[in-house]
Protein backbone atom coordinates (compact mmCIF):
# COMPACT_ATOMS: atom_id res chain seq x y z
CA UNK A 1 0.00 0.00 0.00
CA UNK A 2 1.48 3.32 -1.00
CA UNK A 3 1.71 6.23 1.33
CA UNK A 4 -0.57 8.25 -0.96
CA UNK A 5 -3.21 5.55 -0.79
CA UNK A 6 -3.67 6.25 2.86
CA UNK A 7 -2.79 9.91 2.94
CA UNK A 8 -4.94 11.48 5.56
CA UNK A 9 -6.02 15.06 5.10
CA UNK A 10 -4.03 17.38 7.34
CA UNK A 11 -6.11 17.53 10.44
CA UNK A 12 -5.99 18.00 14.14
CA UNK A 13 -7.69 14.88 15.34
CA UNK A 14 -10.12 15.08 18.16
CA UNK A 15 -9.25 11.71 19.56
CA UNK A 16 -11.22 12.00 22.78
CA UNK A 17 -14.30 11.72 20.63
CA UNK A 18 -14.08 7.95 20.82
CA UNK A 19 -13.38 7.62 24.49
CA UNK A 20 -15.90 6.02 26.78
CA UNK A 21 -15.46 9.12 28.92
CA UNK A 22 -17.64 10.90 26.40
CA UNK A 23 -20.18 8.16 26.38
CA UNK A 24 -22.80 8.46 29.06
CA UNK A 25 -23.27 4.75 29.73
CA UNK A 26 -19.69 4.28 31.00
CA UNK A 27 -17.97 5.84 33.94
CA UNK A 28 -15.24 8.24 32.85
CA UNK A 29 -11.71 6.92 33.22
CA UNK A 30 -9.01 9.00 34.76
CA UNK A 31 -6.18 10.08 32.49
CA UNK A 32 -2.72 9.01 33.61
CA UNK A 33 -0.66 9.93 30.57
CA UNK A 34 -1.63 12.66 28.18
CA UNK A 35 0.37 12.84 24.97
CA UNK A 36 0.15 16.13 23.10
CA UNK A 37 1.36 16.77 19.58
CA UNK A 38 4.22 14.33 19.94
CA UNK A 39 6.80 14.19 17.15
CA UNK A 40 9.75 11.83 17.28
CA UNK A 41 12.72 12.00 14.92
CA UNK A 42 15.69 9.85 14.06
CA UNK A 43 18.10 12.44 12.76
CA UNK A 44 16.03 14.16 10.10
CA UNK A 45 13.49 11.43 9.50
CA UNK A 46 10.20 11.75 11.27
CA UNK A 47 9.08 8.50 12.90
CA UNK A 48 6.07 9.69 14.89
CA UNK A 49 4.06 12.59 13.56
CA UNK A 50 1.84 14.76 15.69
CA UNK A 51 0.27 12.19 17.97
CA UNK A 52 -2.19 13.27 20.61
CA UNK A 53 -3.92 10.79 22.88
CA UNK A 54 -4.78 10.03 26.49
CA UNK A 55 -3.84 6.87 28.35
CA UNK A 56 -6.21 5.97 31.13
CA UNK A 57 -5.29 4.97 34.65
CA UNK A 58 -5.20 1.23 35.37
CA UNK A 59 -6.32 0.32 31.90
CA UNK A 60 -4.46 -1.49 29.17
CA UNK A 61 -3.86 0.54 26.05
CA UNK A 62 -2.72 -1.38 22.99
CA UNK A 63 -0.75 0.24 20.18
CA UNK A 64 -1.22 -1.64 16.93
CA UNK A 65 -0.08 -1.07 13.37
CA UNK A 66 2.11 -2.57 10.68
CA UNK A 67 5.90 -2.76 11.02
CA UNK A 68 7.62 0.56 10.82
CA UNK A 69 4.52 2.55 11.72
CA UNK A 70 6.27 4.18 14.66
CA UNK A 71 4.50 2.31 17.44
CA UNK A 72 7.69 1.22 19.20
CA UNK A 73 9.20 4.66 18.77
CA UNK A 74 6.02 6.11 20.22
CA UNK A 75 6.15 4.17 23.48
CA UNK A 76 9.88 4.77 23.79
CA UNK A 77 8.96 8.45 23.94
CA UNK A 78 6.74 7.80 26.95
CA UNK A 79 9.66 7.03 29.27
CA UNK A 80 12.25 9.17 27.50
CA UNK A 81 13.98 6.10 26.13
CA UNK A 82 13.80 7.36 22.53
CA UNK A 83 16.46 9.98 23.17
CA UNK A 84 18.95 7.28 24.24
CA UNK A 85 19.40 6.41 20.55
CA UNK A 86 22.06 8.66 19.03
CA UNK A 87 20.52 11.37 16.85
CA UNK A 88 17.00 10.81 18.15
CA UNK A 89 14.89 13.64 19.47
CA UNK A 90 11.35 14.38 20.54
CA UNK A 91 9.01 17.34 20.24
CA UNK A 92 5.71 17.83 21.99
CA UNK A 93 4.46 17.03 25.44
CA UNK A 94 3.93 13.90 27.48
CA UNK A 95 2.03 14.74 30.66
CA UNK A 96 2.20 12.21 33.49
CA UNK A 97 -0.49 13.20 35.98
CA UNK A 98 -0.33 16.67 34.48
CA UNK A 99 3.45 17.14 34.69
CA UNK A 100 5.38 17.28 31.43
CA UNK A 101 8.01 14.54 31.20
CA UNK A 102 9.87 16.68 28.70
CA UNK A 103 9.67 19.82 30.83
CA UNK A 104 12.86 21.67 31.65
CA UNK A 105 14.64 20.36 34.70
CA UNK A 106 13.00 16.94 34.46
CA UNK A 107 15.55 14.15 34.92
CA UNK A 108 14.96 11.28 32.48
CA UNK A 109 16.28 8.90 35.15
CA UNK A 110 13.45 9.95 37.44
CA UNK A 111 10.95 9.59 34.57
CA UNK A 112 12.06 6.01 33.94
CA UNK A 113 11.48 5.09 37.57
CA UNK A 114 7.88 6.19 37.23
CA UNK A 115 7.36 4.74 33.76
CA UNK A 116 8.82 1.25 33.49
CA UNK A 117 9.53 -0.71 30.36
CA UNK A 118 9.62 -4.30 29.17
CA UNK A 119 11.43 -4.98 25.92
CA UNK A 120 10.75 -7.02 22.84
CA UNK A 121 13.28 -9.70 23.60
CA UNK A 122 13.76 -10.80 27.20
CA UNK A 123 16.92 -9.08 28.40
CA UNK A 124 17.76 -10.37 31.86
CA UNK A 125 21.24 -9.40 32.99
CA UNK A 126 23.30 -12.54 32.35
CA UNK A 127 25.84 -11.96 35.10
CA UNK A 128 23.15 -11.59 37.77
CA UNK A 129 21.10 -14.22 39.56
CA UNK A 130 17.32 -14.26 39.35
CA UNK A 131 17.24 -12.51 42.71
CA UNK A 132 19.74 -9.84 41.67
CA UNK A 133 17.93 -9.25 38.40
CA UNK A 134 14.75 -8.39 40.24
CA UNK A 135 16.58 -6.36 42.85
CA UNK A 136 18.73 -4.48 40.29
CA UNK A 137 16.41 -1.54 39.76
CA UNK A 138 15.03 -1.49 43.28
CA UNK A 139 18.48 -1.30 44.81
CA UNK A 140 19.35 1.77 42.74
CA UNK A 141 17.43 4.08 45.01
CA UNK A 142 15.60 1.77 47.34
CA UNK A 143 16.64 0.53 50.72
CA UNK A 144 19.89 -1.32 51.32
CA UNK A 145 18.20 -3.38 54.02
CA UNK A 146 18.39 -7.05 53.06
CA UNK A 147 14.99 -7.91 54.45
CA UNK A 148 13.25 -5.11 52.58
CA UNK A 149 14.94 -6.16 49.35
CA UNK A 150 14.01 -9.80 49.89
CA UNK A 151 10.40 -8.84 50.49
CA UNK A 152 10.40 -6.69 47.39
CA UNK A 153 11.89 -9.44 45.24
CA UNK A 154 9.33 -11.94 46.47
CA UNK A 155 6.45 -9.52 46.00
CA UNK A 156 7.57 -8.56 42.49
CA UNK A 157 8.07 -12.18 41.43
CA UNK A 158 4.61 -13.01 42.78
CA UNK A 159 3.12 -10.09 40.85
CA UNK A 160 4.84 -11.38 37.72
CA UNK A 161 3.47 -14.89 38.40
CA UNK A 162 6.97 -16.32 38.49
CA UNK A 163 7.51 -16.87 42.22
CA UNK A 164 6.29 -20.45 42.40
CA UNK A 165 8.54 -21.47 39.50
CA UNK A 166 11.75 -19.90 40.76
CA UNK A 167 11.44 -19.66 44.56
CA UNK A 168 13.98 -22.43 45.12
CA UNK A 169 16.37 -21.25 42.37
CA UNK A 170 16.73 -17.58 43.20
CA UNK A 171 20.52 -17.80 43.13
CA UNK A 172 20.60 -19.25 39.61
CA UNK A 173 21.46 -16.97 36.70
CA UNK A 174 18.51 -15.16 35.16
CA UNK A 175 19.49 -16.53 31.79
CA UNK A 176 18.98 -20.12 32.98
CA UNK A 177 15.21 -19.63 32.68
CA UNK A 178 13.09 -20.34 29.61
CA UNK A 179 12.23 -17.48 27.25
CA UNK A 180 8.78 -16.94 28.73
CA UNK A 181 10.13 -17.09 32.27
CA UNK A 182 12.86 -14.63 31.32
CA UNK A 183 10.26 -12.20 30.05
CA UNK A 184 8.26 -12.53 33.28
CA UNK A 185 11.53 -11.99 35.15
CA UNK A 186 11.96 -8.76 33.21
CA UNK A 187 8.41 -7.78 34.13
CA UNK A 188 9.15 -8.53 37.80
CA UNK A 189 12.31 -6.45 37.51
CA UNK A 190 10.33 -3.52 36.12
CA UNK A 191 7.58 -3.90 38.75
CA UNK A 192 10.10 -3.88 41.60
CA UNK A 193 10.70 -0.18 40.95
CA UNK A 194 6.96 0.51 41.56
CA UNK A 195 6.25 2.23 38.26
CA UNK A 196 2.98 4.06 37.74
CA UNK A 197 2.95 3.11 34.08
CA UNK A 198 4.38 -0.04 32.51
CA UNK A 199 5.33 0.08 28.83
CA UNK A 200 5.57 -3.21 26.98
CA UNK A 201 7.20 -3.22 23.58
CA UNK A 202 5.94 -6.35 21.80
CA UNK A 203 6.64 -8.40 24.93
CA UNK A 204 5.50 -11.69 23.40
CA UNK A 205 7.04 -11.48 19.96
CA UNK A 206 9.92 -13.76 20.92
CA UNK A 207 7.75 -16.22 22.86
CA UNK A 208 5.82 -19.37 22.08
CA UNK A 209 2.00 -19.45 22.38
CA UNK A 210 1.95 -20.94 25.89
CA UNK A 211 4.39 -18.36 27.24
CA UNK A 212 2.38 -15.68 25.42
CA UNK A 213 -0.82 -16.83 27.08
CA UNK A 214 0.85 -16.58 30.49
CA UNK A 215 2.03 -13.04 29.82
CA UNK A 216 -1.44 -12.03 28.65
CA UNK A 217 -2.99 -13.51 31.77
CA UNK A 218 -0.43 -11.57 33.76
CA UNK A 219 -1.37 -8.33 32.00
CA UNK A 220 -4.98 -8.88 33.07
CA UNK A 221 -3.92 -9.24 36.68
CA UNK A 222 -1.49 -6.36 36.60
CA UNK A 223 -3.91 -3.75 35.39
CA UNK A 224 -5.46 -3.60 38.84
CA UNK A 225 -2.28 -1.99 40.09
CA UNK A 226 -0.54 -0.37 37.14
CA UNK A 227 -1.37 1.44 33.91
CA UNK A 228 -0.17 -0.58 30.94
CA UNK A 229 0.69 0.45 27.39
CA UNK A 230 1.45 -2.50 25.14
CA UNK A 231 2.76 -2.42 21.61
CA UNK A 232 1.77 -5.46 19.61
CA UNK A 233 1.68 -6.51 16.00
CA UNK A 234 -0.74 -9.23 16.95
CA UNK A 235 -4.28 -7.89 16.63
CA UNK A 236 -5.86 -10.82 18.46
CA UNK A 237 -3.58 -10.03 21.35
CA UNK A 238 -4.65 -6.40 21.34
CA UNK A 239 -8.29 -7.48 21.28
CA UNK A 240 -7.72 -9.92 24.14
CA UNK A 241 -5.75 -7.80 26.56
CA UNK A 242 -6.58 -4.16 25.99
CA UNK A 243 -9.29 -1.71 27.02
CA UNK A 244 -8.23 0.90 24.51
CA UNK A 245 -6.56 0.54 21.17
CA UNK A 246 -4.60 3.02 19.09
CA UNK A 247 -3.96 2.25 15.44
CA UNK A 248 -0.78 3.76 14.02
CA UNK A 249 0.08 3.96 10.37
CA UNK A 250 3.10 5.62 8.79
CA UNK A 251 3.97 7.43 11.98
CA UNK A 252 0.51 8.87 12.49
CA UNK A 253 -2.24 7.99 14.88
CA UNK A 254 -5.09 6.96 12.61
CA UNK A 255 -7.64 5.97 15.16
CA UNK A 256 -7.91 5.65 18.90
CA UNK A 257 -10.80 4.38 20.97
CA UNK A 258 -12.24 1.67 23.16
CA UNK A 259 -10.93 -1.68 21.95
CA UNK A 260 -14.43 -3.02 21.37
CA UNK A 261 -15.27 -0.09 19.10
CA UNK A 262 -12.02 -0.24 17.15
CA UNK A 263 -12.42 -3.91 16.39
CA UNK A 264 -16.14 -3.89 15.65
CA UNK A 265 -16.97 -0.47 14.26
CA UNK A 266 -13.80 1.29 13.22
CA UNK A 267 -14.31 4.84 11.99
CA UNK A 268 -11.53 4.88 9.43
CA UNK A 269 -11.12 2.80 6.36
CA UNK A 270 -7.44 2.16 7.06
CA UNK A 271 -8.22 0.78 10.49
CA UNK A 272 -10.81 -1.52 9.07
CA UNK A 273 -8.51 -2.66 6.29
CA UNK A 274 -5.73 -3.36 8.78
CA UNK A 275 -7.78 -5.27 11.32
CA UNK A 276 -9.50 -7.30 8.66
CA UNK A 277 -6.10 -8.28 7.35
CA UNK A 278 -6.23 -6.46 4.05
CA UNK A 279 -2.74 -5.08 4.66
CA UNK A 280 -0.05 -4.94 7.31
Amino acid at each position, binding site marked *: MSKEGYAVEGRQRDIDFHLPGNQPEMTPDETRLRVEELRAYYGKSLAVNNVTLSIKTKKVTAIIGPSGCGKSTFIRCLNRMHEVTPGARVEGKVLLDGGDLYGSGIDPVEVRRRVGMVFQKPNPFPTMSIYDNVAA*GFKLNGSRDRRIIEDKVEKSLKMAALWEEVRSDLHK*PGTSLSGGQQQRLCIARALAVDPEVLLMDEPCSALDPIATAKIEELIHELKDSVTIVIVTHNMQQAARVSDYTAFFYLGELVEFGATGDIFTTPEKRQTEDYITGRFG
Partner: protein
Amino acid sequence: MQGEPQVINRPLGRLLTRASGKLVHPDAQVINLGDRFFYTLTRGLAFCVIFLVILLVLDLFRGSWEAIRQFGLKFLVGTTWDPVARQFGTLPTIVGTIVKAFIALLLAVPISIGSAIFISFYTPKWLRPVISYPIELLAGIPSIIFGLWGLFVMVPVIRVLQVWLKANFGWFPLFNGPAVYGVGVLAGSAILAIMITPIIAAISRDILLTVPRTQIEGMLALGATKWEAIWKVALPYARTGLLGAVILGLGRAIGETMAVTMVGGNSFDLIHSLFDPVHSMASQIASEFAEATYSLYVSSLIYVGLVLFGITIIISLLAQLLLWRLSKGRIAILE
Protein backbone atom coordinates in the same frame (compact mmCIF):
# COMPACT_ATOMS: atom_id res chain seq x y z
CA MET B 1 42.92 -42.12 10.83
CA GLN B 2 40.30 -44.13 8.98
CA GLY B 3 37.26 -42.58 10.61
CA GLU B 4 38.78 -39.14 11.00
CA PRO B 5 37.92 -37.41 7.71
CA GLN B 6 34.23 -38.09 8.19
CA VAL B 7 34.15 -36.21 11.46
CA ILE B 8 36.27 -33.33 10.27
CA ASN B 9 34.66 -32.96 6.89
CA ARG B 10 31.14 -32.71 8.14
CA PRO B 11 31.23 -28.97 8.98
CA LEU B 12 33.09 -28.38 5.74
CA GLY B 13 30.30 -30.10 3.87
CA ARG B 14 27.78 -27.88 5.59
CA LEU B 15 29.78 -24.81 4.68
CA LEU B 16 29.87 -25.88 1.06
CA THR B 17 26.15 -26.41 1.05
CA ARG B 18 25.61 -22.87 2.23
CA ALA B 19 28.21 -21.33 -0.05
CA SER B 20 27.07 -22.98 -3.23
CA GLY B 21 23.43 -22.46 -2.41
CA LYS B 22 22.67 -25.98 -3.52
CA LEU B 23 20.62 -28.26 -1.39
CA VAL B 24 23.10 -30.95 -0.52
CA HIS B 25 22.72 -33.10 2.50
CA PRO B 26 25.33 -31.94 5.01
CA ASP B 27 26.57 -35.46 5.57
CA ALA B 28 27.12 -36.07 1.88
CA GLN B 29 30.82 -36.16 1.15
CA VAL B 30 30.74 -33.86 -1.84
CA ILE B 31 34.21 -32.44 -1.67
CA ASN B 32 36.02 -31.54 -4.81
CA LEU B 33 39.75 -31.49 -5.41
CA GLY B 34 40.22 -27.80 -4.56
CA ASP B 35 38.53 -28.19 -1.20
CA ARG B 36 40.51 -31.29 -0.44
CA PHE B 37 43.67 -29.35 -1.25
CA PHE B 38 42.84 -26.41 1.00
CA TYR B 39 41.74 -28.72 3.76
CA THR B 40 45.07 -30.53 3.65
CA LEU B 41 47.01 -27.29 3.32
CA THR B 42 45.40 -25.52 6.28
CA ARG B 43 45.60 -28.64 8.41
CA GLY B 44 49.29 -28.87 7.60
CA LEU B 45 49.84 -25.21 8.52
CA ALA B 46 47.96 -25.66 11.79
CA PHE B 47 50.14 -28.62 12.71
CA CYS B 48 53.20 -26.57 11.77
CA VAL B 49 52.40 -24.11 14.56
CA ILE B 50 51.99 -26.87 17.12
CA PHE B 51 55.18 -28.47 15.92
CA LEU B 52 57.06 -25.17 16.30
CA VAL B 53 55.88 -24.75 19.88
CA ILE B 54 56.95 -28.27 20.77
CA LEU B 55 60.32 -27.71 19.10
CA LEU B 56 60.78 -24.46 21.01
CA VAL B 57 60.11 -26.07 24.37
CA LEU B 58 62.39 -28.99 23.60
CA ASP B 59 65.15 -26.64 22.53
CA LEU B 60 64.77 -24.52 25.65
CA PHE B 61 65.15 -27.66 27.74
CA ARG B 62 68.09 -28.85 25.68
CA GLY B 63 69.87 -25.49 25.89
CA SER B 64 69.33 -25.08 29.61
CA TRP B 65 70.01 -28.70 30.47
CA GLU B 66 73.51 -28.01 31.80
CA ALA B 67 72.20 -25.29 34.15
CA ILE B 68 69.24 -27.44 35.20
CA ARG B 69 71.58 -30.28 36.10
CA GLN B 70 73.91 -27.94 37.95
CA PHE B 71 71.41 -25.86 39.95
CA GLY B 72 68.08 -27.65 39.67
CA LEU B 73 65.16 -25.76 41.16
CA LYS B 74 67.52 -23.83 43.44
CA PHE B 75 68.08 -21.66 40.39
CA LEU B 76 64.62 -20.21 40.99
CA VAL B 77 65.29 -19.21 44.59
CA GLY B 78 68.98 -18.35 44.40
CA THR B 79 69.80 -14.68 44.81
CA THR B 80 73.35 -14.66 43.48
CA TRP B 81 74.08 -14.01 39.83
CA ASP B 82 77.84 -14.14 39.59
CA PRO B 83 79.33 -15.24 36.28
CA VAL B 84 82.86 -14.97 37.68
CA ALA B 85 82.14 -17.38 40.52
CA ARG B 86 79.99 -19.52 38.19
CA GLN B 87 77.05 -19.05 40.55
CA PHE B 88 73.65 -18.42 39.03
CA GLY B 89 70.35 -17.83 40.81
CA THR B 90 67.58 -15.80 39.34
CA LEU B 91 65.09 -14.99 42.10
CA PRO B 92 65.76 -11.20 42.02
CA THR B 93 65.01 -11.06 38.29
CA ILE B 94 61.86 -13.16 38.61
CA VAL B 95 60.63 -10.91 41.40
CA GLY B 96 61.66 -7.80 39.47
CA THR B 97 59.85 -8.94 36.34
CA ILE B 98 56.61 -9.86 38.08
CA VAL B 99 56.55 -6.82 40.35
CA LYS B 100 57.15 -4.45 37.45
CA ALA B 101 54.50 -6.14 35.34
CA PHE B 102 51.88 -5.99 38.08
CA ILE B 103 52.58 -2.38 39.01
CA ALA B 104 52.32 -1.60 35.30
CA LEU B 105 48.90 -3.29 35.24
CA LEU B 106 47.85 -1.34 38.30
CA LEU B 107 48.69 1.88 36.49
CA ALA B 108 47.49 0.87 33.04
CA VAL B 109 44.17 -0.89 33.71
CA PRO B 110 42.21 2.07 35.11
CA ILE B 111 43.47 4.36 32.34
CA SER B 112 42.83 1.93 29.51
CA ILE B 113 39.44 0.63 30.67
CA GLY B 114 38.43 4.20 31.46
CA SER B 115 39.32 5.40 27.99
CA ALA B 116 37.61 2.37 26.46
CA ILE B 117 34.43 3.20 28.39
CA PHE B 118 34.62 6.79 27.21
CA ILE B 119 35.11 5.82 23.57
CA SER B 120 32.43 3.12 23.60
CA PHE B 121 29.68 4.85 25.52
CA TYR B 122 30.25 8.59 25.58
CA THR B 123 31.81 9.42 22.23
CA PRO B 124 29.59 10.08 19.23
CA LYS B 125 30.24 7.63 16.43
CA TRP B 126 32.00 10.13 14.14
CA LEU B 127 34.43 11.14 16.88
CA ARG B 128 35.39 7.58 17.84
CA PRO B 129 38.14 7.11 15.23
CA VAL B 130 39.59 10.52 16.12
CA ILE B 131 40.20 9.30 19.65
CA SER B 132 40.95 5.64 19.01
CA TYR B 133 43.34 6.09 16.10
CA PRO B 134 46.11 7.71 18.19
CA ILE B 135 45.67 4.94 20.75
CA GLU B 136 46.18 2.30 18.09
CA LEU B 137 49.12 4.24 16.72
CA LEU B 138 50.68 4.21 20.18
CA ALA B 139 50.33 0.43 20.27
CA GLY B 140 52.45 0.12 17.15
CA ILE B 141 55.45 2.19 18.25
CA PRO B 142 58.64 0.08 18.56
CA SER B 143 59.68 -0.46 22.14
CA ILE B 144 63.15 1.02 21.65
CA ILE B 145 61.48 4.38 21.09
CA PHE B 146 59.59 4.04 24.35
CA GLY B 147 62.93 3.18 25.94
CA LEU B 148 64.67 6.26 24.58
CA TRP B 149 61.81 8.53 25.52
CA GLY B 150 61.68 6.89 28.94
CA LEU B 151 65.36 7.39 29.57
CA PHE B 152 65.61 11.00 28.43
CA VAL B 153 62.20 12.40 29.33
CA MET B 154 60.48 10.20 31.88
CA VAL B 155 63.36 9.13 34.11
CA PRO B 156 64.31 12.72 35.10
CA VAL B 157 60.71 13.34 36.09
CA ILE B 158 60.55 10.06 38.01
CA ARG B 159 63.78 11.01 39.77
CA VAL B 160 62.23 14.23 41.05
CA LEU B 161 59.12 12.35 42.11
CA GLN B 162 61.15 9.68 43.89
CA VAL B 163 63.27 12.23 45.77
CA TRP B 164 60.13 14.00 46.89
CA LEU B 165 58.44 10.75 47.92
CA LYS B 166 61.48 9.68 49.88
CA ALA B 167 61.82 13.03 51.60
CA ASN B 168 58.18 13.13 52.65
CA PHE B 169 57.14 9.49 52.93
CA GLY B 170 60.51 7.86 53.48
CA TRP B 171 59.15 6.08 56.56
CA PHE B 172 57.08 3.92 54.18
CA PRO B 173 59.34 0.94 53.33
CA LEU B 174 58.47 0.94 49.62
CA PHE B 175 59.66 4.54 49.31
CA ASN B 176 62.86 4.02 51.23
CA GLY B 177 65.34 3.25 48.47
CA PRO B 178 67.97 4.85 46.24
CA ALA B 179 65.76 7.64 44.94
CA VAL B 180 68.37 9.59 42.98
CA TYR B 181 69.02 6.93 40.35
CA GLY B 182 65.73 7.53 38.63
CA VAL B 183 65.99 4.20 36.86
CA GLY B 184 64.46 1.29 38.76
CA VAL B 185 61.23 -0.55 39.52
CA LEU B 186 59.07 2.55 39.35
CA ALA B 187 60.50 3.81 36.06
CA GLY B 188 60.30 0.30 34.55
CA SER B 189 56.71 -0.10 35.66
CA ALA B 190 55.77 3.32 34.35
CA ILE B 191 57.21 2.68 30.90
CA LEU B 192 55.53 -0.73 30.77
CA ALA B 193 52.24 0.87 31.78
CA ILE B 194 52.54 3.36 28.94
CA MET B 195 53.30 0.55 26.51
CA ILE B 196 50.46 -1.77 27.49
CA THR B 197 47.80 0.91 27.92
CA PRO B 198 47.06 1.23 24.20
CA ILE B 199 46.76 -2.54 23.77
CA ILE B 200 44.37 -2.97 26.68
CA ALA B 201 42.41 0.13 25.68
CA ALA B 202 42.00 -0.91 22.05
CA ILE B 203 40.85 -4.44 22.86
CA SER B 204 38.58 -3.29 25.70
CA ARG B 205 36.94 -0.79 23.38
CA ASP B 206 36.15 -3.52 20.86
CA ILE B 207 34.80 -5.72 23.64
CA LEU B 208 32.63 -2.98 25.14
CA LEU B 209 31.18 -2.11 21.74
CA THR B 210 29.79 -5.65 21.58
CA VAL B 211 27.63 -5.19 24.69
CA PRO B 212 24.06 -5.30 23.33
CA ARG B 213 22.11 -2.05 23.48
CA THR B 214 19.18 -3.94 24.98
CA GLN B 215 21.28 -4.76 28.04
CA ILE B 216 22.14 -1.13 28.71
CA GLU B 217 18.63 0.05 27.85
CA GLY B 218 17.23 -2.62 30.18
CA MET B 219 19.11 -1.03 33.06
CA LEU B 220 18.30 2.55 31.98
CA ALA B 221 14.61 1.61 31.88
CA LEU B 222 14.80 0.71 35.58
CA GLY B 223 15.79 4.28 36.36
CA ALA B 224 19.54 3.81 36.33
CA THR B 225 21.85 6.62 35.32
CA LYS B 226 24.11 5.99 32.37
CA TRP B 227 27.02 5.46 34.71
CA GLU B 228 25.08 2.89 36.76
CA ALA B 229 24.10 1.04 33.59
CA ILE B 230 27.73 0.92 32.46
CA TRP B 231 29.08 -0.07 35.86
CA LYS B 232 26.46 -2.62 36.83
CA VAL B 233 25.50 -4.10 33.47
CA ALA B 234 27.90 -3.33 30.62
CA LEU B 235 31.15 -4.02 32.48
CA PRO B 236 29.93 -7.28 34.07
CA TYR B 237 28.56 -8.36 30.70
CA ALA B 238 31.95 -7.75 29.11
CA ARG B 239 34.05 -8.96 32.03
CA THR B 240 35.50 -12.07 30.42
CA GLY B 241 36.60 -10.13 27.38
CA LEU B 242 38.01 -7.32 29.50
CA LEU B 243 39.93 -9.82 31.57
CA GLY B 244 41.33 -11.25 28.35
CA ALA B 245 42.49 -7.77 27.33
CA VAL B 246 44.22 -7.30 30.68
CA ILE B 247 45.93 -10.68 30.42
CA LEU B 248 47.24 -9.77 26.98
CA GLY B 249 48.65 -6.57 28.46
CA LEU B 250 50.21 -8.54 31.30
CA GLY B 251 51.77 -10.93 28.81
CA ARG B 252 53.39 -8.09 26.95
CA ALA B 253 54.58 -6.46 30.19
CA ILE B 254 56.27 -9.66 31.33
CA GLY B 255 57.97 -10.34 28.04
CA GLU B 256 58.93 -6.76 27.22
CA THR B 257 62.68 -6.41 26.72
CA MET B 258 64.08 -3.24 25.23
CA ALA B 259 62.34 -0.44 27.07
CA VAL B 260 62.74 -1.98 30.51
CA THR B 261 66.38 -2.67 29.80
CA MET B 262 66.85 1.05 29.28
CA VAL B 263 64.99 2.36 32.32
CA GLY B 264 64.87 -0.60 34.71
CA GLY B 265 68.31 -0.19 36.22
CA ASN B 266 69.43 -3.78 35.58
CA SER B 267 70.71 -4.78 39.00
CA PHE B 268 70.97 -8.36 40.18
CA ASP B 269 70.02 -7.59 43.77
CA LEU B 270 66.69 -8.45 45.31
CA ILE B 271 64.48 -5.36 45.43
CA HIS B 272 63.33 -3.88 48.70
CA SER B 273 61.69 -0.67 47.51
CA LEU B 274 60.04 0.81 44.46
CA PHE B 275 63.20 2.79 43.71
CA ASP B 276 65.64 -0.12 43.53
CA PRO B 277 67.12 -0.83 40.12
CA VAL B 278 66.45 -4.37 38.93
CA HIS B 279 66.70 -6.54 35.84
CA SER B 280 63.79 -8.12 34.04
CA MET B 281 64.18 -11.66 32.81
CA ALA B 282 63.88 -10.73 29.16
CA SER B 283 66.27 -7.79 29.44
CA GLN B 284 68.75 -9.92 31.37
CA ILE B 285 68.89 -12.46 28.57
CA ALA B 286 69.18 -9.81 25.89
CA SER B 287 71.88 -7.77 27.57
CA GLU B 288 74.10 -10.64 28.69
CA PHE B 289 73.92 -13.09 25.88
CA ALA B 290 76.81 -11.51 24.02
CA GLU B 291 78.99 -11.65 27.14
CA ALA B 292 78.26 -15.23 28.01
CA THR B 293 81.67 -16.74 27.48
CA TYR B 294 81.28 -20.28 28.78
CA SER B 295 78.60 -22.90 28.30
CA LEU B 296 77.18 -22.90 31.85
CA TYR B 297 76.66 -19.14 31.57
CA VAL B 298 74.83 -19.54 28.23
CA SER B 299 72.89 -22.45 29.64
CA SER B 300 71.85 -20.39 32.68
CA LEU B 301 70.57 -17.61 30.45
CA ILE B 302 68.54 -20.11 28.46
CA TYR B 303 67.25 -21.47 31.77
CA VAL B 304 66.04 -17.94 32.54
CA GLY B 305 64.26 -18.05 29.20
CA LEU B 306 62.66 -21.36 30.10
CA VAL B 307 61.44 -19.94 33.41
CA LEU B 308 60.05 -16.89 31.60
CA PHE B 309 58.25 -19.20 29.21
CA GLY B 310 56.89 -21.15 32.16
CA ILE B 311 55.64 -18.00 33.88
CA THR B 312 53.76 -16.83 30.79
CA ILE B 313 52.19 -20.27 30.45
CA ILE B 314 51.15 -20.28 34.10
CA ILE B 315 49.62 -16.82 33.74
CA SER B 316 47.74 -17.82 30.63
CA LEU B 317 46.48 -20.99 32.33
CA LEU B 318 45.37 -19.03 35.39
CA ALA B 319 43.60 -16.61 33.07
CA GLN B 320 41.83 -19.49 31.34
CA LEU B 321 40.79 -20.85 34.70
CA LEU B 322 39.51 -17.46 35.79
CA LEU B 323 37.61 -16.98 32.54
CA TRP B 324 36.10 -20.42 32.90
CA ARG B 325 35.03 -19.69 36.48
CA LEU B 326 33.56 -16.35 35.44
CA SER B 327 31.65 -17.73 32.51
CA LYS B 328 30.28 -20.69 34.44
CA GLY B 329 26.51 -20.51 34.56
CA ARG B 330 26.27 -18.18 31.63
CA ILE B 331 23.89 -20.32 29.67
CA ALA B 332 22.45 -19.19 26.37
CA ILE B 333 22.50 -15.45 26.62
CA LEU B 334 19.52 -13.99 24.84
CA GLU B 335 20.39 -10.74 23.20
